[in-house]
């Protein structure tokens, strides 16, 4: 009993513990309807913009794109904002606040595995939301978008970017309540910069530039290019990567397990 387990057995058990963690968290997410975090608002927005597009057919501000086409990337990013900023940090701050992380850290499993399972779960939820929103947009509303490897890569980067900002909130917030307030402070500016109220092509000038170089504006722009089979300007990708690195650095720097 005191003999060391073989490395392969330990690995196997670690995998078992991780999949068990993921399974339990998935069930909890279903039970508290957490799964809808990134679905309800974006779906409602999608319907609204589809309806507006029906009433105002034609291209927007000389962009060559309809309202639905132009706003779909924005709506996808809003889904990532909801999951990354409203869902993830509150759950994590709560787990820390109630002592769940501490409880887990008395077992052979490190609490980092709990965090990893939570990140993976939220990534899956974001992927489900993305698939659902695209199916509605393309199959039901008939928008001529293409989904390729480029789109998947860029969407993944956008999700990681929002998650790392969410982890900043989780790192600095002392409680679930605080996490919700702090995240709330980020959400509206990020939604605005993603073009929810007005798209950069409509405003132009300095505001458009600010939007293009914002965390969500860059993501929307890169996604927009990719769903029309175009190569996005490299500045959009660089902007996203730089923000992700900065957010991740701050999150790691201020992170607390207890």
């Amino acid at each position, binding site marked *: 009993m005191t003999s060391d387990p073989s490395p392969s057995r330990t690995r196997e*058990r670690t995998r078992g513990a991780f999949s068990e963690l993921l399974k339990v968290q998935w069930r909890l997410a279903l039970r508290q309807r957490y799964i809808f975090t990134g679905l309800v608002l974006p779906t409602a927005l999608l319907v609204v913009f589809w309806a507006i597009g029906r009433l105002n057919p034609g291209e927007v501000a000389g962009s060559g794109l309809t309202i639905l086409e132009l706003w779909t990337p924005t709506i996808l990013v809003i889904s990532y904002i909801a999951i990354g900023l409203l869902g993830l940090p509150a759950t994590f701050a709560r787990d820390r606040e109630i002592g769940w992380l501490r409880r887990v850290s008395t077992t052979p499993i490190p609490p980092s595995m709990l965090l990893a399972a939570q990140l993976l779960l939220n990534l899956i939820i974001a992927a489900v939301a993305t698939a659902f929103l695209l199916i509605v947009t393309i199959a039901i509303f008939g928008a001529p978008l293409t989904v390729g490897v480029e789109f998947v890569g860029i969407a993944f980067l956008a999700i990681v970017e929002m998650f790392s900002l969410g982890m900043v909130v989780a790192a600095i917030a002392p409680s679930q309540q605080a996490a919700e307030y702090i995240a709330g402070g980020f959400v509206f500016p990020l939604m605005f910069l993603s073009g929810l109220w007005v798209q950069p092509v409509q405003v132009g000038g300095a505001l458009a530039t600010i939007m293009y170089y914002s965390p969500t504006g860059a993501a929307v722009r890169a996604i927009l290019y990719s769903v029309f089979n175009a190569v996005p300007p490299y500045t959009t990708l660089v902007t996203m990567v730089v923000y992700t690195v900065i957010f991740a650095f701050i999150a790691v720097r201020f992170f607390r397990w207890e």
Partner: protein
Amino acid sequence: MSPSAVVQGPASSCVDSQSGTYEVLSPIYSTAGGINSSRHPPLGRSRGEPMSADKAPGEASVAPTEPGPIVAVQHLVKRYGDLVAVNDVSFSIRKGEIFGIVGPNGAGKTTTVECISGLRVPDSGQIFVDGLSPRTDRKKMREFVGVQLQEGALPPIITVGEAVELFASFYRDPLTPDRLLESLGIGELKQKQFQKLSGGQKQRLSIALALVGNPRIAILDELTTGLDPEARRETWDLIEHIRERGVTVILVTHFMDEAERLCDRLALIDHGVVRVLDTPEAITARVGGVRVRFVPSVPVDDSTLRAIPGVETIERKDRYITVTGTGDLATSVLDALRKAGVSVSELEARKGNLDDAFVKLTRNAGPEERDSA
């Protein structure tokens, strides 16, 4: 072990010499021992080892064959800023015993066990848990040390079954979750969410999570705080079952009746130092003193009582006067009051219990101050 911090003493001689002297006139103060019901079946095991818990209650006992210490704490110091929470604490715990860490709130009990379990890093001192260091062998140690934290917090919507199965997946050689829950009397709660459990049920789940890894050492912190008397008694039975399985139990509590009932030995920690370390019986016999309660025929003032040799404290409640102290207290009180022309009725005398010993040891004051308190 630092000799200055630990009061050593020959336990049996104290008990014998005192029990002959004082007659216990009323049983009402006697501690409620002997409740050894086995309402719950033995704890579940996944593999085929024979279960010592199959023995009849009371038959199984701590292996007295001089086992070496399974936990050794040497000169442990832990500070939080300027506050010295634990100040040079040393003790060792024998394999298979229930070792109590008792003391008032904020005495440093939880900090001590958190250092043992590796949740906190000591500022100085050495800790060995089955030969391993909680600091450097954290991961290995967690395989065989089960911990029940003071606030056993789980996500509110997780079910009992999910929590126990999840924790079972963390360990190399876990107990079977279903059998464990069954043996803890919460088998029928598998589908119930954590937030809907009663205090006692939460506590049982918390014990289940501490035991599901099939640990050799279980650290249980403030196990029965907030439980009703019935639930407390049931929890005590559970702890005795755990011990019968050969698990060494470290029990943190501020309830003296709990420590008296369960612990083989206990360390009383106060202001971060060990005031005494011994069996509950030995501590009680040596420090607990005597307690005499009576109703005087006419009012008696404190100065008369304080003049009686051996009297240390005086308490009044309704018609009753209770004096505590040392020596042949009942006889002294009776003699002195007879001389003062006071007759006494409803006399009860008993040896002080652990609670009395605890109060004496943690009150760092002389007899005069105690009287006025």
